[in-house]
């Protein structure tokens, strides 16, 4: 797919960051979702949690300054902010499973209109690895997904029913894509379009979406600064 003005990963991350409120406890998935931290809205201070037992970490250290006892769930070196805390893995997942995290933001292979998420393996081949994703989607108060709107092969990633192995059932409530912001109405099993790229027609957007996009009230313009 080659849509004009389609958001890049930085821009999708920027848009997701706008919905994080001051003081919220946030877990960002490994890779793409980690970019969200860089776009924290000025004046807001979310506290970032990582599965391996850290609350309140900050940016990556300068090269050569890494302390390999101080890493995040992606095994990347991090730094601490004042007021940080360490804790063991059982406590870390008590935070997750016990509903103490306000927001978890993850990547996706597929998201279904019933809120099901598939993001941990494509099929039954290779070495499976799940990490903390299944805990996060069942525990955080709000589970959001960042993703390109369609897969590299053009297949829709927003679907009626996931065909890849599930990470969790009925868990995702908001999807930030390269084309749109979409809420998931889990009880009614439907996607509700909230924002789309201004110049993109509803028909074109629906065409690259694997399940019906419902509209409730006004659809906003997905407007994001230039970022790369």
């Amino acid at each position, binding site marked *: 797919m080659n849509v004009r003005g389609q958001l890049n990963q930085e821009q999708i991350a920027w848009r997701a960051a706008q919905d994080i409120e001051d003081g919220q406890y946030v877990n960002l998935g490994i890779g793409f979702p980690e970019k969200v931290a860089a776009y924290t809205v000025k004046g807001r201070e979310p506290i970032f949690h990582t599965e391996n037992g850290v609350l309140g970490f900050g940016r990556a250290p300068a090269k050569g300054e890494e302390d390999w006892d101080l890493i995040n769930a992606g095994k990347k070196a991090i730094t601490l902010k004042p007021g940080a*805390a360490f804790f063991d893995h059982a406590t870390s997942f008590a935070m997750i499973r016990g509903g*103490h995290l306000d927001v978890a933001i993850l990547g996706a292979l597929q998201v279904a209109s019933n809120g099901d998420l598939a993001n941990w393996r494509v099929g039954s081949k290779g070495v499976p690895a799940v990490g903390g994703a299944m805990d996060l989607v069942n525990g955080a108060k709000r589970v959001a997904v960042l993703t390109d709107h369609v897969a590299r092969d053009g297949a829709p990633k927003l679907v009626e029913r996931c065909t890849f192995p599930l990470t969790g059932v009925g868990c995702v409530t908001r999807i930030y894509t390269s084309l749109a912001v979409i809420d998931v109405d889990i009880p009614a099993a439907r996607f509700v379009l909230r924002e789309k790229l201004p110049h993109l027609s509803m028909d074109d957007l629906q065409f690259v979406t694997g399940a019906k996009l419902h509209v409730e009230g006004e659809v906003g313009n997905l407007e994001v600064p230039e970022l790369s």
Partner: protein
Amino acid sequence: MNKHYASAAEAVADICDGATVMIGGFGGSGAPIELIHALIDAGPKHLTVVNNNAGNGHVGLAAMIEQGMVDKLICSFPKSKDPTAFSERYLAGRIELELAPQGTLAERIRAGGAGIPAFYTPTAYGTELGEGKPVAEFDGRPYLQERWLKADYALIKAELGDPYGNLTYRLAARNFSPLMAMAAGQTIAQVGRLVDAGGIEPEAVVTPGIFVNRLVEIADPAQEEVLNQAEARYP
């Protein structure tokens, strides 16, 4: 982010009738006397209280019970040197008691905080405290199924607190407080000293701030045992 409240009164002001309130401490060790007394001043009724004990003398939890604020108590050991506040009401049928073995009580609270709706324990199997609970056998041994315990509020006492809500505890005053902090919708901590962010070493944090919503600084907090030796009463 700053979870600091100016007074105990403000910190407990929204606790209303019918709430479930966990109160930290084991006997007087770790009992958040100033928060409890502020709650007595506020005066909500029909509370369910979770505490290891049932108060001692006429201050703290005992005084709450004497004020008729507590409909139900969930605890392991409702006896003390001067247990009349609870025992008179209990024997008169005016307060409900849910008795739980101490380790089961602690684990149920932790489970509430950790998102574990139920777990199995050997404790109380074959006793009257196990009656009516589901039994399952694992590896040839019978166990009881116990449910999580959650609360609307937790009132706890800590030693140091920082603006993020990170806490440390003094000596054995730790006991139930780290668990209750996890299991309540709103956790209110009175701290002996409020320090700046960074004033608690990240490795020394006992309760991470994510489990704490409100902080009140109470320097030189009262000790229930000392109050009782002085035959204090509240209000």
